[in-house]
């Protein structure tokens, strides 16, 4: 369930990147930042939060365990 929610969050953020609703607006937030630029900056902060969620709740720790279990020379492909 946790993983499904995270996948949904990733897809949702990807869709939110296409902010066609501010496409033609030249409104200035705080009197100097164009709204389209302000929105995309907020999007970057949201992406950071999403990455934190992924690292916290979906970290592939098993990969590191597999590496530690592999003795030197064992399974060597090269």
């Amino acid at each position: 369930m946790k993983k499904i929610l995270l996948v949904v969050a990733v897809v949702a953020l990807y869709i939110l990147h296409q902010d066609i609703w501010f496409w033609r607006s030249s409104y200035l937030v705080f009197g100097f930042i164009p709204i389209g630029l302000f929105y995309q900056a907020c999007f970057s902060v949201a992406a950071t939060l999403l990455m934190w969620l992924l690292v916290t709740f979906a970290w592939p720790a098993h990969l590191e365990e597999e590496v530690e279990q592999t003795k030197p020379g064992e399974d060597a492909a090269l």
Partner: protein
Amino acid sequence: MIPAIVVFLYLAAVLYIGIFAFRRATGREKAEDYFLASRSLGPFVFLFSLFGTNMTAFAILGSSGHAFNNGIVTFGLMASSSGLVIPLTIFLIGTRVWALGKKYGFMTPVQMFRDRWECTHIGTVIFAVQAVLLVPYIIIGIMGGGTTLYTISGGVVPFWFGGAIVAMVVMSYVFFGGMRGTAWVNTFQTVLFLCFGAIALSVIGVGMGGFRSAAQAIQASPLSSLLTRERISPYYFFSYTFIPLSAIAFPHILIFCLTARKMNQFKKTVIFYPLCIMAIWLPCVFLGVMANRVTDVPEIRAKQEARRVLATQGRNMLPEERDQLREQAAGDDVIMHLLQRYAPIWLAGLLGAGIMAAVMASDSQILALSTMFTEDVFAFYGGKTRFGESVQVQTGRIFIILITLFAYAIALRAPETIFELAIQYAFSGFASLSPLLIAALFWRGSTKWGALAVALWTASAVVAVAVFQEVVPAPAPGPSTIVWAPGGVEILSRTPGGTSVFGFMPVVPMVLTSALLMIVVSLITKKPAASTLARYFGDRNR
């Protein structure tokens, strides 16, 4: 000339770091130490060097130049989409490649592909495609170096000489320091150019008398579209989200993923990547747009005039005349003109060094090409067995000299702006190769023939786009030239900035076709042995 001197001091510092790393190396003749720093990078160096590796000249010069002519759309096009896609791919793919590298000793992506798909010469084909696509990325760095030194010195240091100096410095510390030197220099450079944005924004903001009046003046002028995304279509904007897929497919990024001491070191990189991108791109894009309000810098006025003539009279001009005007209107050096106008001389020098830091990110690409050549070709075809590991490392060093000279020679002749050159060839090509990684790591059913199909398709598509754009001249700003529209459906067009396929950038059909080819060809060809699949995906029968 003082800013140029500060930049030269910076270059000397960078050179010293690279050579210092050479002295610190413990196993100088070991390939794994030279090419991967013995897989021992700590969390801080790993975060900043991996990020710095991915930021090239276009992060500062290209982004502000693109924003100068196209407006705020530049940030959403490349920066914020990268802030989502790149850390996601590092999280999903980078960690897995790191684990496989630790387990099986891989030093390049092609070594992994050869083992995963049980192939030999197909791996060499993939190497060739990667190598050819990586060269433009190196050229960007040298061109950026030439442009930066030329502008900062007020034209005293010519483009060819500036490019030569940057090429020499990069070549030297990569030659001596290998991956350790490159990572340390990258860390130093990343800290420098992360500071660049905030300082440049403050200094130029104060110099312009605050951004509020400048932004409101643009809003009230015919240039108000620069504060919106009107100049770019939503299809084009959507297409750009495919470009960051290239990051993880770039060999230098994948090879960097192999240098972490522990997998936990990926965590900070994944989390802070979007913020780091924002810290650099947001000020640069904003300043690029605001530069349109600057009226007392002759070089910027000349660019605005060239853009105006192109927009109003471009349709009646010859293609060569339009290209010339485009070159004049290109804004790659606009941020440096702003610094020269508004920053005190000593600070302009320091900020110039910050720009230089971003420009010189071509070091890891040069090292990656050398690693790939020595591992995927020299060692694979028996050179290591015959001549030993020490000769392998020396071969890598000679390769570094040759590839730098080659890139420099092309940089002197390359006609495109930094941004266009990077996007149209290197980024689209590597994005198109990304299905290789996804298939190798996540799909048992993928085969070497599917991989070959993807590599050949990518090479053909990149060549086709380049030929198409050479044959059909770019139209004046406005409607694109429709080349193929059977039954009124617009399939292929030449746009002022490139090519459009069904209204999308070529990268979209390139990536989708790659994925389709991987699936279809793999389904009808023989899979690798069960024992190989078991090493990658576990044993199904167990």
